[in-house]
């Protein structure tokens, strides 16, 4: 499968890359390329310009700064389980990185690219030929959704493996725009709109991920169910962060909605309580109510609901054993 034609540029600085994005709305940033180039081969993404930011220095780092861990957007996923600072301070981030795709994807793919990956849908991640049998859907610029009828909403799901664990750690991201930059919560990076999953302004580029110090001294973990255990996107993924001292437990899910979600209802039930078998059973039943599942993947919503429940139960029990 050939790639479509595009203009290739190698900006020398983030400012230059931001200008390219704001001057040309259909330009795209190329980092690891493992998500974007596969989508381009399927012709579901056809950017006019690809701006390769890998030649810009200073975007690939892991360091601790005033307690917080700061990770450059271009840091390869593999580095997250090969760097002692991460494996010691945030082991759950290391194991989440090791669960992404295959070893090759972990070598090529970057943390920023993983967070900014395209949403997925069984009617979207298909070749041009496969898709030609149906009317084009909202996600590729058409006027219909094959998953949910009669609504002008794209129901593709966000399936990233890195977002859930960073969400429960209340991570922030830095978005650069020309000379300027702003820091926002990771949660607000996601729009919840399947068609344009990222809520960024014109010309903005994700440059840095910040894990606050308060997240580092508590237990956290990410687990996922996937078709092929070691190399697939999650059918459902769940992360928790649990602080015994603060009696605070945070829960997030991926691949269940148009964006990665925090399970706020479950969190409020857990707030102020110590984890116990009974409480775990109590909230496990609430898991599936956190997302309105649709049939955007090959797995039935009823099956995914059971997976959400199972993952919540097993991750909370892991936290219980640790404390």
């Amino acid at each position, binding site marked *: *499968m*050939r*790639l*479509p*034609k*595009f*203009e*290739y540029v190698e900006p020398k600085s983030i400012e230059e890359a931001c200008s390219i994005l704001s001057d040309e709305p259909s330009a795209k940033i*190329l980092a690891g*390329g*493992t998500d974007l*180039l*596969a989508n381009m*081969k399927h012709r579901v993404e056809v950017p006019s310009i*690809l701006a*390769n930011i*890998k030649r810009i220095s200073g975007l690939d780092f892991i360091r601790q700064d005033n307690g917080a861990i700061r990770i450059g957007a271009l840091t390869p996923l593999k580095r997250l389980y*090969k760097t002692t600072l991460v494996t010691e301070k945030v082991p759950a981030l290391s194991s989440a990185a*090791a669960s992404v*795709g*295959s*070893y*090759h*994807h972990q*070598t*090529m793919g970057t943390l920023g690219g993983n967070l900014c990956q395209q949403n997925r849908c069984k009617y979207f991640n298909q070749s041009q030929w496969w898709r030609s049998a149906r009317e084009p859907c909202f996600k590729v610029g058409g006027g219909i959704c094959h998953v949910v009828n009669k609504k002008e909403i794209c129901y593709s799901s966000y399936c990233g493996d890195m977002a859930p664990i960073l969400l429960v750690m209340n991570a922030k991201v830095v978005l650069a725009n020309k000379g300027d930059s702003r820091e926002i919560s990771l949660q607000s990076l996601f729009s919840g709109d399947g068609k344009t999953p990222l809520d960024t302004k014109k010309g903005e580029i994700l440059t840095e991920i910040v894990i606050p110090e308060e997240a580092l001294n508590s237990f956290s973990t990410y687990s996922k169910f996937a078709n*092929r255990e*070691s*190399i697939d996107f999650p059918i459902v993924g769940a992360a928790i962060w649990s602080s015994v001292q603060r009696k605070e437990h945070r829960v997030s899910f991926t691949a269940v909605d148009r964006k990665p979600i925090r399970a706020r209802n479950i969190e409020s039930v857990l707030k102020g309580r110590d984890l116990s078998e009974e409480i775990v059973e109590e909230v496990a039943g609430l898991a599936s109510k956190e997302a309105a599942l649709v049939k955007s993947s090959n797995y039935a919503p009823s099956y995914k609901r059971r997976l959400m429940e199972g993952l919540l139960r097993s991750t909370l029990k892991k936290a219980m054993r640790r404390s």
Partner: protein
Amino acid sequence: MKQEIALNINGDTHELLVSPNQTLLEVLRDNLGLMGTKRGCDLGACGACTVLLEGEAYLSCLMLAMDAVDKEIVTIEGLGGRGNLDPLQSAFVEQGGLQCGFCTPGMILTAKAMLSEEDHPTEDIIKKRMAGNLCRCTGYKKVIEALQSVSEQTAEEE
């Protein structure tokens, strides 16, 4: 529009005229005739197109040729040939780690990258790192045995 680039492949510099939308895999096979690198799924799911880029395992089907400029690329042709096989290649032959051989270049290069990072990988680590290289005929047992024999060999030499 085609552009002139230089790629460092298996120690030689190749000056080439490529289009920006050509993948490294296409350039290796179509422009240079290095057919050892295989085109499998062409979407990054099978590992058959694995090459070494600065010693790391990269999927050449998901990499632009332009992106590989200034990087040291090694394909299976650069690893060893008749008479001077790489220890990994010999191990695949001796342990019977292949049948049709289509996945073998990717398998060997992924293994090469892994062994350069992990001194003595456990079976579990070997399985995890090799999971992105699919084989449709022999199964994986003999591949794993081949890798283990190489890692044991280097342990003995130390």
